[in-house]
């Protein structure tokens, strides 16, 4: 839903109406995603890493749709993107470096 000042009330309402069908379809898609994730993870996997990757990929896709459409980020203003971009960077740094630190715990340090 874009919120330009120039839109009249009627135009806004028409936009909102258009998006209602979209929301319902996305909701159905999300439910299907959940069921697929359950199905996939209940199967026996050779490689547990692959199982994790698939489950997280489904979760990320679901997350994308919720953020972009339910929360309207896809048509949101630039300034909001900039906060979220920084947040994403710091989130990755915090998670990534903390885990990187752990995985080197038992290594011999001097090569």
């Amino acid at each position, binding site marked *: 839903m874009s919120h330009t000042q120039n839109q009249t009330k009627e135009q806004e309402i028409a936009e909102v109406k258009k998006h209602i069908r979209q929301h319902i379809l996305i909701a159905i898609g999300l439910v299907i995603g959940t069921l697929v994730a359950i199905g996939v993870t209940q199967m026996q996997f050779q490689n547990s890493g692959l199982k994790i990757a698939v489950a997280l990929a489904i979760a990320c896709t679901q997350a994308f749709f919720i953020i972009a459409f339910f929360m309207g980020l896809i048509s949101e203003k630039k*300034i909001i993107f900039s906060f979220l971009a920084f947040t994403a960077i710091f989130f990755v740094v915090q998670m990534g470096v903390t885990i990187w630190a752990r995985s080197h715990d038992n290594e011999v340090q001097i090569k």
Partner: protein
Amino acid sequence: MQSAQHEHTGHDDHSGHAAEHHEPGFWAKYFFSTDHKVVGIQYGITALLFMFFGFSLMMIMRWQLAYPGHPVPILGKYLYQLLGPEMVGKDANGVPGVLSGDLYNAFGAMHGTIMVFLAIVPLATGAFGNYVMPLQIGAPDMAFPRLNMMSYQFYFCGGVIMFASFFIPGGAAKSGWTSYSPLATIADTVHHPNGQTLWLLGMVFLITSSLLGSVNIITTIIQLRAKGLTWMRLPFFVWAQFVTAFLLLLAFPPLEAAGILQLMDNAFGTSFFLPTGLVVSGQPLHIVGGGSPLLWQHLFWFLAHPEVYVLILPALGIVAEVVANNTRKTLWGYRSMVYGSMTLGFLSFVVWAHHMYLTGMGIRIATFFQTTTMMISIPSVIILTALLISLWGGSIRINTPMLFALGFLPMFGIGGLTGLPLGFNASDIQLHDTYYVIGHFHYVVAPGTIFAIFAGIYYWFPKATGRMMNEYWGKVHFALSMIFMNLIFMPMFIQGLAGMSRRMYDGGVTYAAVGGVVGLSPFVLYLNKIISHAAWALGLSQIPFIINFFWSMTRGPKVTSDNPWNATTLEWQTPTPPGHGNFTKEIEVFRGPYDYSVPGHATDFTPQNEPGVPDILPHANPLHS
């Protein structure tokens, strides 16, 4: 501060709404106000009280360090009565008042916590940020006034919880302000809840307060700037508050998460940070294990490093305002300072593990953090250099705010430079956890940030109260504080280089070089006495300030104009003190923040909202001929 209560100023156009302007009662006016100026002053007074309390804790600790085993004079018996024989011991003659190791550690942990979270940050962002920033951007108040009130109330509650923790069985938290696991969980397994639990609970309140405050500050700066006040026309103080608020917003939550996890460890028997096989006092601890003490450190320092930039950025902001005003020229390198502060803010998120060089986390990671740490010194130096160059060619006015601002510059320089050997992995091996570190960070915060805060108080006092503080006693306050700050913290570098560890409750006597044993020399131990006496003298030196502050509120010389310092920024365009809604006229900004001594102008300062030729190149201005 009768400031916000003059609701009738500038409300002449509301004659038809008499019903909305009933005088609020005492509680509504002073405790439940949503006016940013009242909230700012609430933060200011509460924070100064906590600073006094935190300072007093240190003064008692310093007695122990100078005279280990001797009872604290005068206060000793009261401490004994208040806190009991487990915390306070007696000397050989049965005189009570010797701090036990546990009590020393509790004082130490709480001194750090109180100074950082209950004094400096609330002063820098809650007091100055709330009071000055909306005025400087030409806004009537903050974007979310009720949220502002709530953020103060959360802060107050957190403070009360922290204060109360001294008086519960077991005493206050005693595992350092850094609250490292497993010590934080095993330091007191007897009492539940204990001081550590209350510390964690208090932190949750303080973090919530901080969060609400940052959301408010950022939204206000983005949305409520006056007409014509573009980003690059903002006073540097506002930029500093903006970046600081982002640091608080994004860095605090991992500590909140860590705090919740540690609370679970302490109160619900989990082992998030407790490793398998932990043995305490010869007995294996009955925990499930599998936890990681390093995880706590990562999450803690992820906040605590940006936190130190939260401590310094608003101070740099205050100093910038005072320097521009008292050199009667624009700041040199304004753009560099703005981009520098944004870079500083960004980089502050990726340097945290330089506090963890000695944890054995690995050479690759240490190198990564060493690199980023060296990088972050660049924007800091840019900002400090810009401030120094701003003095060049200026028409310098010496008054109390300027003295503190000038004093800040070399002190921050020393603090910053002494950080370099700590930022390098190799040299940090020698210096980590020694008094060198204490010297380093106190230089940046004590004669650093606190001097900037004093500068800000002397500078903005006339706007808030309509009276000037006494100049003579201000200068006395400055001179004495400057001397004693240096006497306290300079010797600590010597002690640290000699290997004196932090957090030793006997001042290092256990490690004295006696009888041919390698250890701390008598000179290094003697420095403890010098430092302690200087600390007590510093405490006494604050008395002129405290008296000046309260006396001048009602009996200082009244200002003769709304703009006694002849400053250019918008806060001086309000009535004194500003009423509810702040500005009595429509504010439109036409120029940058520091149009001092512009050639062709009649006066040596041109306020931001003065219409006329825009701030591109100076040329003769027909307005003031």
